[in-house]
């Protein structure tokens, strides 16, 4: 894969200020996402995993521009988003859509299913009748008979049906990329599996690219081509799914994967690999953010921040250069992997 990525981010950063007190002054800063760079290629599924609070959802909202980044760029199909000469927000949102975790809260309780789906095309100037026709087609595509479900209201539907409608809604603008933010996490295991199958089927049918965000390692392994592991607002490891799951490099990824329940009685989990909660993102640890919970932490980990694999290539603008570090690369941000970093375990 040497083509330019469909979606790329460079040093994306979002810090939320917590204000308080009489004068509304900034009391603390939550470093929700701090310098995140990755690429998504057309047709693949990038899984993003991490504990809650690691910045997965903020990353999704940054990609959609539902929150404005403090710094960094999002480049969609070679065009920088929200920059002069780049891609406008309305155009971006026609090409990139999102499915939210809470299937109930993300549907307007006062609109019937068909209207919820048709709303996007409607506000983009598609006439009402053809928007509704498109909605019926999409209901069919997500496995709901339009004649039964078009006029239903959210409170008349089950969680799985609602999430299917959310997916149909996201597809109504015929986007090229879909962000699935914990899209099946709130569903029952069996219902979630059905919705997952619908998603896989739709991806093939409409040539979609997915960014699949979840805390569920099994699900991510099942759907993803590549996986990105986040910890406290940073990317700690990224690579092809077999590589990351088979040969995890970062100690955090290893800890995360060893916490996966195993179906094989010969491979029982012997001890809890990670204790405690992630540190507060208001005052993250210096250097490597994982060092406070890492069994291999040394002085160097507190002093310097480990780089993520190679240096990220230059921004790829349409017709420009392709960055040297392309998708099959498997990178992890740990001093142990960098020769001469000063860590005793480094080669």
């Amino acid at each position, binding site marked *: 894969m040497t083509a330019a990525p469909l979606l790329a981010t460079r040093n994306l950063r979002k810090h939320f200020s917590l204000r308080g007190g009489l004068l509304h002054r900034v009391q603390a800063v939550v470093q929700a996402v701090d310098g995140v760079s990755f690429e998504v290629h057309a047709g693949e599924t990038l899984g993003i995993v991490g504990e809650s609070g690691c910045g997965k959802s903020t990353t999704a909202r940054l990609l*959609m521009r*539902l929150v404005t980044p403090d710094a960094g760029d999002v480049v969609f199909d070679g065009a920088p988003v929200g920059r002069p000469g780049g891609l406008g*927000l*309305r155009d971006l*949102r*026609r090409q990139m*859509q*999102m499915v*939210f975790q*809470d299937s109930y*809260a*993300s*549907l*307007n*309780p*006062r*609109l*019937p299913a068909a*209207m*919820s789906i048709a*709303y*996007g095309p*409607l*506000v*983009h100037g598609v006439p009402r009748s053809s928007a509704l026709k498109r909605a019926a087609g999409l209901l069919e595509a997500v496995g709901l008979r339009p*004649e*039964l479900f*078009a*006029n*239903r*209201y959210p*409170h*008349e539907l089950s969680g799985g049906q609602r999430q299917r409608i*959310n997916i149909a*809604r996201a597809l*109504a*603008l015929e986007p090229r990329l879909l962000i699935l933010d914990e899209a099946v996490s709130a569903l029952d295991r069996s219902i979630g599996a059905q919705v997952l199958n619908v998603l896989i089927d739709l991806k093939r049918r409409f040539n979609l690219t997915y960014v699949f965000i979840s805390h569920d390692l099994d699900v991510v392994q099942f759907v993803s081509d590549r996986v990105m592991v986040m910890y406290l607002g940073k990317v700690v490891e990224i690579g092809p799914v077999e590589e990351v799951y088979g040969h995890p490099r970062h100690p955090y990824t290893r800890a995360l994967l060893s916490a996966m329940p195993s179906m094989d009685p010969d491979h029982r989990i012997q001890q809890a690999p990670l204790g405690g909660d992630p540190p507060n993102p208001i005052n993250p640890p210096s250097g490597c953010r994982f060092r406070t919970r890492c069994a291999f932490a040394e002085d160097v980990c507190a002093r310097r921040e480990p780089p993520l694999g190679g240096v990220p290539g230059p921004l790829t603008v349409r017709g420009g250069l392709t960055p040297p570090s392309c998708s099959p690369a498997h990178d992890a941000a740990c001093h142990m992997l960098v020769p001469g970093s000063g860590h005793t375990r480094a080669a």
Partner: protein
Amino acid sequence: MATTPADGALPLLLPDEALARARAGNSYWKNVWERLREDKVTIAVTLVLLAIILLAVFAPLVVWHDPLVGSAFTRLKPIGTERHWLGTDEVGRDLWARMVYGGRLSLLCGVLPVFLALLAGGSLGILAGFTGGFLNSAIMRSMDVLYAFPSILLAIAICGILGSGLGNTILALTVTFIPPMVRISESVTAQVRSLDFVEAARASGSRTLPLLRYHVLNNVLGPILVFAASLISISMILAAGLSFLGLGATPPHPEWGLMLNNLRPAIWVAPMTAALPGVMIFLTSMSFNLMSDGLRQAMDVRL
């Protein structure tokens, strides 16, 4: 047609009918209507209200006395007197006529200020709740200034400054009701705005106006209207109070609060007659209150 199994289990719909029902869908308002129909109290008070409103509207048709003309020979007749079945007041005017005509003014004083406050306060509140930030602070803090006065005091103060009269009463009550109206609509809107479906609508590239129309207004109008309905009774009571104090409707026009005041000295002579306007105020405001309660319950669909 439903087939009923012999052992009294739940009746099952025939497939055709089930399909037809599913096709039709259950719209929100249809649901509300179905629940309202079950609620006997709400139905009853709504009928009472309808009767009062119809009487006031068609007053000339149900009354055979001039409400403004009295007679010294028929003062303070008791209830059940021939030709004056509700009796007469302290200057011999027919109470039935005054009660019916008084309903016109009293209902107007109850409904119009609330309606005006709904328009002004509702739109201000939705604006504040939807935009947030500086505009929100500006609007809400200026409402807080008005909130500092107890509502009756504010109404009295405004009426006292502007002088008595129906127009001034309505204006005073409107100003009094704007702050609570703004506060309710602001909080409902802010709540709706933070829900995922609004974010999803923004994510689909919607501009602000359709977003407001399809996603925000839809969801905030119900609670705001219910609150407004509950204000009507307060408005009526305040208007009656203002008239009672001599700040509202001017004599000899019939208005329930004013009538209550005028009949006050007669309470020892003809207590039933003197209480009648009070009974009407109580009945009407109670009905509005119970109706808004019933509406709120019926509209609270979170199945």
